[in-house]
Every structure is written in structure tokens, then in C-alpha cells.
């Protein structure tokens, strides 16, 4: 199967969904999940093909790179595509019937997310980023409360500013090199982009992508939106969509900015994100906000990992990202009933033991208690950072350890509340409908505990492949593309 289907199928589904819903509500309700399952199968098939034959690129419209737009299919891209598809599918479990617009937007987020993962062209990445961004504004406001609208409009303003920064960065790069194709840029970068203007372009793109990736200075929308949006949407945005923006940053770092000080910029934003996120989570008294701030901290960890040069950083980053994509959506699903002030959780263990157990497992994994997979992810990060001969990376280690202590403190505090005796304000037990996604995610988490050694092997294979810039260039640029260079540069 062609990798284009990963994007084309959910797009087509989104366009025809309103029509199907008008005829048959039941058929419409099942259209989305069926499309996602087919997509998952396609992604698995492509994974097998990449494992057997190595990576390949797809030229859109038959115009080869660097003139046309290309998709680059490697395991890293497929892994993130699978994460988006599977994550959305799990969050579909127990969904209410007849929310045609929400379902359309969810399919579009999947299409945009797969596009972001696969695309090998800067402007094309921008277009997919916009699709995901605009769909998120709508979904963030879909609860329909006044506070939700206010949060969503602030999110929209910040995100629109971020998008223009991203576009400005891309324009700068195009002005300097005359090309947008990532493989072509990777080839040209050592002579044309490893200078101060190139770094400025990276900083602009980082700020733009950082809005979705919840990076330090542009993440003010996070607590507000996650406190007001429906739990499924917070789960999707915080758990899954945010990682895609970081994937684009990683591609830029590996292909274009590997030998510059750009990783240090990402590292410092990551460190600041971890500190501010965890401290704010400690002070917060609303469960949704605690989770939102903790998600800022966790994404800061992923940013720190991606800033570590070489495959070690990519391994740690993917492990942290995947772990967070399993744990945080599950935690958000519990807030549908438990959201609001923390003292509503007093005595929650007496009301619903199952949800309390889920919460404990998830929180312990997030903190990084062995043998839960969160430990492995953090361990990989520390190991990677320790191997770099640079003081900043060693500072990052100290910060990560302090952040872990803070994380432990606030999760233990919440758990203590849960085991006190029940009061008047104690929240009701979460509905089974909302627990279904959380349970499936926890099952996946526990499966990953049992299969930890094959997972870490395939992680290092993915990272080796993704860190190889030469392969990317050779597989994407055709051998006769040099005729472009006959024109005077």
C-alpha cells in the first residue's frame, strides 16, 4: 500500500461523513472507527515493508524532489502515525453517538497528524500543521461553555501568532536556499544554513511549533484549555497532537541543524518547561490543571531528550513520548468525573476502587517507578544526557531529578486524599463509558512492561534509522537532481 493512503483515507472520510450521517446515523457512527482500523492496518503493512526493504520516499504527482513534494516513509514516521491513529481509535471507545462535527474534526486531526509525520517538505508541513491547529480550536471549544470559548479564543490567538512565526522561519529558509524540500535542505545546510540567520529561522520555527508542543514561553493556553475542554479532547491534544510538533522539531534538528547550537536552544526551553510545569502543578489545586501542568513538564522532558545529539537522544525522546501518549490520555479520561477541585477526590477510593487503582498505576508510571515503563523512559533520558560532554546537559539531569521529586510530591498528595474517608463533596465514580479508553490504555501500558526487551530493541533500530541523514538524502533526492545546480546559485 502507498503511504499516501494514511492521509487520503481519513480526509476522504471526513469529507463524506456529513453525507453518510444524513442517510444512516448508525453507518455514520461506525465510519470513523472503520477508517481508523483500515488506516492502522495500512500503517502496519508499511511498517513490515520498511523493516524488510528499508525506508522509501513517495513523490507526489510524480514530480521528484526537490521540485515536487515528497513523503518520507521510515519507522519513526510510521511509529508516530500509528500513535495518532491508535490513540484516536482508543479515545473513540464509548463516544456518544451523533456528534458528526466532532467526528469530522477528529478524522481531520488524524489526517493532518499522519501528514505531519510523513511529510518531507517544509511548507507542506506547515499546511498539515494548520489543519491540525484549526481542528484543535474547534474541538477545544466543543463543550460549549463560556469559559471554554474564552480559553479557545486565547488558544486561537496564540496559535495563530505561532503559525505566523513558523511561516516566517520557513520563508527565511526559502529566501536563503531557494528550496523547501527537507532532503535538499539537508544537503545544502552545511554551507548555507549553519549560520546566524539559519539559527534565527530555527528559533522562529521552534516558537511556532512550540505552541502545539507546549514548549516553555508559548504554553500559556495549556492549563486553561485542558481545564475547560472535554476530557477526550484534552487527552488527544495533550497526549498525542503535542508530540507531532516535537517530531517535526526533531526532523529539523537531525537533518538541518545537527552541527549547530540549535539543540542547546531546544534544551534550554525544555529545562525551563520542566521546572515551570512541575512547580505550577505542585501549586495547582484543580485536578485538570495539575494534569495540564504535568503535561508541560513531560513535554519538556521530551524536548530535552530530542536535544541530545545522536541516536541516544532519539531513543529516549521516543520512549518518553510514547509513554506519555499512553499515560496522560488515560489520566485525562478519569477527570471527566473527577475534574475540578482536588478536595472532591477525598474518599474517592471508597466510591470507585477500580478508578483509584488506575490512577495510582498511571501516576506511578508517570513519576517513573520501576518496573513501570516510565522508569525505563526516564532512565534512557538520564543515560543519554550523561554521555554528552557538555555542562548544560548535566544541568538538565539535575533538573530532571528535582522535577521527579516534585512530581512524586504532588501525586502522593492526591493519592493520600483518595484514601481518606468520604465526605459530602466526594465526586461520583467515573462512568464506564469514560473508563473504557483509560482501561485499554492501561492494558497497553502493562503489556509494554512484559515486552520491555523487544520494545527497547526496536526503539534503538528506529532511532538508528532516523538519525541517518545520508540515507534520507539518498532515498529522497533522485541521482540526476544536480541539473538544478547548473543554474547559478
Amino acid at each position: 500500500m502507498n503511504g499516501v493512503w494514511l492521509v487520503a483515507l481519513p480526509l476522504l472520510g471526513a469529507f463524506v461523513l456529513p453525507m453518510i450521517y444524513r442517510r444512516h446515523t448508525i453507518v455514520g457512527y461506525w465510519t470513523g472507527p472503520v477508517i481508523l482500523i483500515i488506516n492502522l492496518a495500512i500503517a502496519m503493512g508499511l511498517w513490515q515493508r520498511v523493516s524488510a526493504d528499508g525506508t522509501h520516499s513517495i513523490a507526489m504527482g510524480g514530480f521528484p524532489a526537490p521540485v515536487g513534494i515528497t513523503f518520507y516513509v521510515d519507522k519513526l514516521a510510521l511509529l508516530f502515525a500509528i500513535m495518532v491513529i491508535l490513540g484516536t481509535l482508543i479515545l473513540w471507545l464509548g463516544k456518544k453517538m451523533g456528534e458528526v462535527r466532532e467526528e469530522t474534526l477528529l478524522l481531520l486531526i488524524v489526517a493532518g497528524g499522519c501528514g505531519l509525520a510523513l511529510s518531507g517538505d517544509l511548507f507542506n508541513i506547515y499546511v498539515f500543521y494548520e489543519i491540525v491547529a484549526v481542528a484543535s480550536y474547534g474541538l477545544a471549544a466543543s463543550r460549549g461553555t463560556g469559559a471554554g470559548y474564552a480559553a479557545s479564543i486565547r488558544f486561537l490567538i496564540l496559535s495563530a501568532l505561532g503559525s505566523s512565526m513558523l511561516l516566517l522561519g520557513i520563508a527565511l529558509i526559502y529566501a536563503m536556499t531557494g528550496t523547501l524540500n527537507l532532503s535538499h535542505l539537508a544537503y545544502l545546510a552545511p554551507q548555507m544554513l549553519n549560520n546566524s540567520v539559519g539559527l534565527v529561522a530555527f528559533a522562529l520555527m521552534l516558537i511556532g511549533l512550540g505552541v502545539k508542543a507546549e514548549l516553555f514561553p508559548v504554553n500559556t493556553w495549556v492549563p486553561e484549555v485542558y481545564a475547560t475542554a472535554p476530557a477526550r479532547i484534552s487527552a488527544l491534544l495533550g497526549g498525542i497532537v503535542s508530540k507531532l510538533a516535537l517530531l517535526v522539531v526533531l526532523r529539523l534538528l537531525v537533518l538541518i541543524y545537527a552541527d549547530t547550537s540549535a539543540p542547546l536552544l531546544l534544551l534550554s526551553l525544555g529545562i525551563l518547561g520542566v521546572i515551570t510545569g512541575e512547580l505550577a502543578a505542585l501549586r495547582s489545586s484543580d485536578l485538570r490543571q495539575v494534569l495540564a501542568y504535568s503535561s508541560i513538564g513531560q513535554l519538556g522532558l521530551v524536548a530535552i531528550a530530542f536535544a541530545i545529539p545522536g541516536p541516544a537522544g532519539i531513543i529516549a525522546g521516543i520512549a518518553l513520548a510514547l509513554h506519555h501518549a499512553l499515560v496522560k490520555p488515560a489520566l485525562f479520561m478519569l477527570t471527566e468525573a473527577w475534574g475540578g477541585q482536588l478536595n472532591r477526590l477525598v474518599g474517592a477510593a471508597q466510591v470507585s476502587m477500580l478508578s483509584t487503582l488506575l490512577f495510582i498505576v498511571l501516576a506511578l508510571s508517570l513519576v517513573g517507578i520501576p518496573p513501570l515503563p516510565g522508569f525505563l523512559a526516564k532512565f534512557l533520558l538520564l543515560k543519554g544526557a550523561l554521555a554528552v560532554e557538555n555542562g548544560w546537559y548535566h544541568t538538565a539531569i539535575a533538573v530532571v531529578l528535582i522535577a521527579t521529586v516534585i512530581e512524586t510530591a504532588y501525586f502522593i498528595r492526591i493519592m493520600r486524599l483518595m484514601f481518606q474517608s468520604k465526605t459530602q463533596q466526594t465526586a461520583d465514580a467515573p462512568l464506564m463509558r469514560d473508563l473504557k479508553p483509560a482501561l485499554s490504555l492501561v492494558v497497553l501500558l502493562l503489556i509494554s512492561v512484559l515486552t520491555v526487551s523487544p520494545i527497547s530493541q526496536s526503539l534503538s533500530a528506529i532511532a538508528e534509522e532516523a538519525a541517518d541523514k545520508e540515507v534520507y538524502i539518498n532515498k529522497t533526492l533522485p541521482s540526476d537532481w544536480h541539473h538544478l545546480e547548473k543554474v547559478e546559485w
Partner: protein
Amino acid sequence: MNLREISSLVFIVWLGLLLGAVLKIVAYDNILTGGVGTYILTHAAPELGAENIVTSVLLAYRGLDTLGELTVLFVAITAAGLVLGQRRTDAPSDSDAGFILRTAANLLFPFLIILGTYILLQGHFSPGGVFQGGAILAAAFFVPILASPASPLHHRVSRLVEGLVVATFMIICLLALFSDDAFLALLLGKGSVSQLFSAYSLPLLHIVIGFQIGTAFAGILARLQETEASD
């Protein structure tokens, strides 16, 4: 001032310095004569048979971006529908614009449709193109609404048309995937430059996209106009 305000201020100052530095460093008079742009300038007309180079970039070389932009429009209108919700049937609407404007708007409608379609059809070999033609089509649908707000656009119909039109575009692209093994590849023959039936499937894509842009813009404008009236 609290910490949040201070940090925003620091961020804005940093951003200003950054942009200032960029303006100082980048020499805008020294535009690159090379790269992909130059290649397209010299190769677009002979390769594709489309005289309008902008069109050949929009629909052929970077067709996927255009499909993505169309999707952004579709997403925007779906999200707007989700946020703005359904109009109450008893909501008051703006008063009528009067006999002269109403008649003029109705008279204008067919001419705007013809002009829009003409610009779409000619887009591959003369000035004009998808976005221009689409904007004119949107005006054709929106002017009557402005003139008589009480008879609003049929949203269901417009959303159906929109979905169908984009799906058609996708199907044209996917047909190419089956016949030529490349998504968005061009179908049909090249023809000769400056003919109506030339430049592969570009004219076909033109019409489809133009109508999509037209209905999408008209739909968004109509929806916003309705909410304004219902307050």
C-alpha cells in the same frame, strides 16, 4: 505586575530583537537566482502545457499543499459550525436591504456565476485562477444574503456541496494514484499551450477547487452574519 506579564513582556522584547536582527542580516536586494523557483519558471510551460505558472505550481508541483489548504477551509467551516451551533428559528434577523439592492443582487447573481466560472476555466493559460474565481463565486452566493438576510443560505445544502466537491477532488487525485501510481499525478493529455482543453487535468481541478472555495467562503460568511443577527 505578576510573573506572567513580565515573562510575556520579556518574550515580546526578545521577539522584536530577533526580527530586527533578521531584517538587518537578510539582504532582500540579493535575491537568489537559482533553486527550485528558477527551475519551475523555465520548465513549467513546456512540461505541463500550462501558460499560467502560478496555476501549474498550485495544482501540479505543489498540488498537495492546495489540497491541504482546501482542507483547512473545510476544517474552519466545520469548526465554526461546531462553535456557533444552530441558529434558533425564532431569532430576529437583520432588516431587509430594500427593493433596489435586492433586485440588483438577484440580477448580479447569474453574471457573477458566469464571471467566476470563466475565470476558473481560463485559469491555466491566462491571468486568474482558482482562488480568484472562487472568491467571485463566493461573492455571487453571499451578495443575495446581504441584501435579504431573512432568507439565509441552506447550510445543509452548502455543506453537502462542499463535501461532495472536495471528495471529487480527492477522487481525481486517487484515480491518478491507480492509473499512474502517483497521488495527484496529472491525467488526460497535455494538449497545446493556450487551449481550453490542455494542461492535463488542471482545468478540471480548477473548476472543482473554485467551487469548493466559493461555497466554503459563502458558508463561513453566512454563518457569521447569522450569529450577528441572532443576538
